[in-house]
Each structure stands twice: as C-alpha cells, then as structure tokens.
C-alpha cells in the first residue's frame, strides 16, 4: 500500500456481520416485548406463558454469551479484553439470576424474592463496577481522572440521597427486618444503592473521561455501555419504587433490564468491529 492510500484510509463503519447480528438481537427483543405484553395481559395459555418466560430468560443468556465471546476473541491478555470480560461476567451473573428466578417462580411456585436469584443479580453490580473501573483506569496515562471520578461520586451521592428519601426511608427501612427478614432488607437496600454507586456513578465517570477526550471510534462501544448502564440504573430504581409504592410494574419497566443487557451485547459487537483496523 502506498503512503497516499495509507494516509487516506478511513476507518470502516460497522461490519455487515455486526449489523446483522445486532439487528437479530434487536428483533428478538422486539418479539419478547410483544410476548411480554401478552404475558401481562394474561392472554397466553400456560404453555405459551412458560415458553415466553423461558424465551426472555434465554435472551439474557444469549447476551452474556455474545459479550463473553467477544471478550475472549479480544483476549484476556489484553487490557480491553479484561474490561469486556467483566462486562460479560456481569450480564452472565444477571442471566444466572434470571434462570434461578424462572425456575423458582415458574416451576417451583415459590416466591423468588428474596432468593438465591438475588445473589446473582447483585453480582452484576460487582462485575460491572470492575469493568468500569478498569475502563476508566485505562485512560490514566492520557488524562487526569480525578475530576471525572469526583463528578461521578457526586452524582452517585446525589442519586443515593434521592433514593434514601424516596424509597429507602419511607418504604424499605420502614418495613425493616420484621417485615422483610434480614436477607430481604439487605437485598432491598442493596439494589437501589447498587444502581447508583455501581452502575450510574461509574458509567458517568467513564462518560466524562471519554467526552473530555473527544474520543474517536474506540470509544463508540463504551458510549453504548454508558447508555445501557443509565437505562439499567433508572429502570431498576423505578421498578423498586413502583414495587414498594404500590404503583406496580409494567411491561415497559420489565423490558428495561432486557434493553440494558441488549445494549451491553450490542456494545460488545461494536467493540469487535472498532478493534479491527482492517
């Protein structure tokens, strides 16, 4: 290749494979959204309801597999490979929680909250936080991280304060151990706090780092992850509030977790593309 062609090379847009795979994942989620409406309306037969339930759970497993596969292709020995592997582990933990929840709720007829499913659900926070911390830290030689970290922490603290006054104090702490049991109180407190300290704050920090750098295409997948984390934290918090305040859940809220993990999987597909120069 001549110098002229090399210098005029422009990075490819997304590959056909990514467009097709991403489109397929979005279509599957769209199908589940339609089924979810039917599930809420209780218009499905028992068999169709169970099949739809498992279809949704299977999608979470699929998202996790996509991310872990991309991470392994990048390689554990690569810094970015580790970052994506932890994103994948987070979604895998969520999928494991969904499997446990589905079995308890659908097949054993047990109340799945609180249960072993919560152990897996809360693990998503831990793995996601590690992924975000690694991603933010990877820019430490390029830019000062103190300000973004402080801003992320302030956003987390402000959101936690809102959570305390809107959810924890009036509902969860008021119910206490007597009503929830110790395990129920722990997980009921952990979810809203996990949303703000392990999802929202770290994602905001990463967004500020990327934004300050005016980053190019290597930042594309992280922008999608940031949006996914925002969706997850907002939906999860709204769900907790709707549940405790008696407002009740909705298909839209139920689809929030699905959409967030879909965004993480799409981000991984985009990452696969942007990490290829040719």
């Amino acid at each position, binding site marked *: 290749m001549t110098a002229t062609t090399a*210098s005029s090379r422009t990075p490819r847009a997304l590959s056909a494979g990514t467009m097709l795979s991403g489109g397929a994942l979005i279509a599957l989620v769209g199908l589940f959204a339609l089924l979810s409406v039917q599930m809420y309306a209780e218009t499905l037969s028992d068999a169709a309801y169970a099949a739809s339930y498992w279809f949704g759970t299977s999608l979470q497993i699929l998202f996790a597999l996509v991310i872990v596969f991309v991470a392994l292709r990048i390689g554990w020995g690569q*810094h970015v490979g580790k970052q994506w592997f932890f994103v994948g582990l987070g979604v895998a933990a969520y999928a494991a929680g969904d499997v446990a929840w589905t079995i308890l709720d659908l097949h054993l007829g047990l109340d799945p909250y609180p249960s072993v499913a919560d152990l897996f659900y809360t693990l998503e926070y831990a793995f996601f936080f590690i992924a975000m911390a690694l991603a933010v830290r990877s820019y430490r030689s390029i830019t000062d991280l103190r300000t973004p970290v402080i801003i992320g922490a302030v956003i987390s603290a402000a959101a936690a304060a809102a959570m305390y006054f809107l959810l924890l104090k009036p509902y969860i702490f008021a119910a206490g151990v007597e009503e929830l049991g110790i395990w129920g109180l722990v997980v009921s407190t952990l979810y809203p706090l996990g949303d703000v300290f392990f999802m929202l704050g770290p994602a905001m920090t990463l967004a500020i780092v990327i934004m300050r750098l005016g*980053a190019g295409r290597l930042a594309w997948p992280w922008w999608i992850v940031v949006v996914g984390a925002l969706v997850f934290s907002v939906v999860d918090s709204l769900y907790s509030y709707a549940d405790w305040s008696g407002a009740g859940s909705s298909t839209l809220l139920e689809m929030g977790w699905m959409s967030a993990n879909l965004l993480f999987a799409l981000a991984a597909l985009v990452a696969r593309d942007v990490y290829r120069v040719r």
Partner: protein
Amino acid sequence: MSTLSDRVVSTLGPYVGDTVADTCVRATALSLGKTTEDLTPADFPTLEANVRRLLGPVAPTAVVDQLLADIERGL
C-alpha cells in the same frame, strides 16, 4: 506542525480522537526535549514507545501495531 505530528494526528485521530492523538505527539516531543514542530521521522522509535504506553490500555495490541505501521508507512 511537523510532518510526523500531522501524520500521527491524522492516523490516530479517527480511532482515539484528536486530543489523545495530540497527547501522543506532545509526550514524544517532551521525552525528547523538542517541540512538536521539531519532531522528525527519525523520532519514530520514541513515538512508538509513547503510543504503546498511552494506547496499550485502551486498544488491543494488534490495533496499536497496525496504527503504528500506518504512521511509519506514511513518513
């Protein structure tokens, strides 16, 4: 800006943004005690070391290798 600086920014910019690309150039100039305008193709080894150090954590090695090859090829 020198040819090397231009080349680095035009090659790395689309991937990491112009700010980070410029940081790679300035880090190289600083480590050599030069200004960015004074960088020449002979300074490529130092540039390579700085690009690997700065971009290694944010991009796979193969991508960094390819981008460095593109920079060197255009000098």
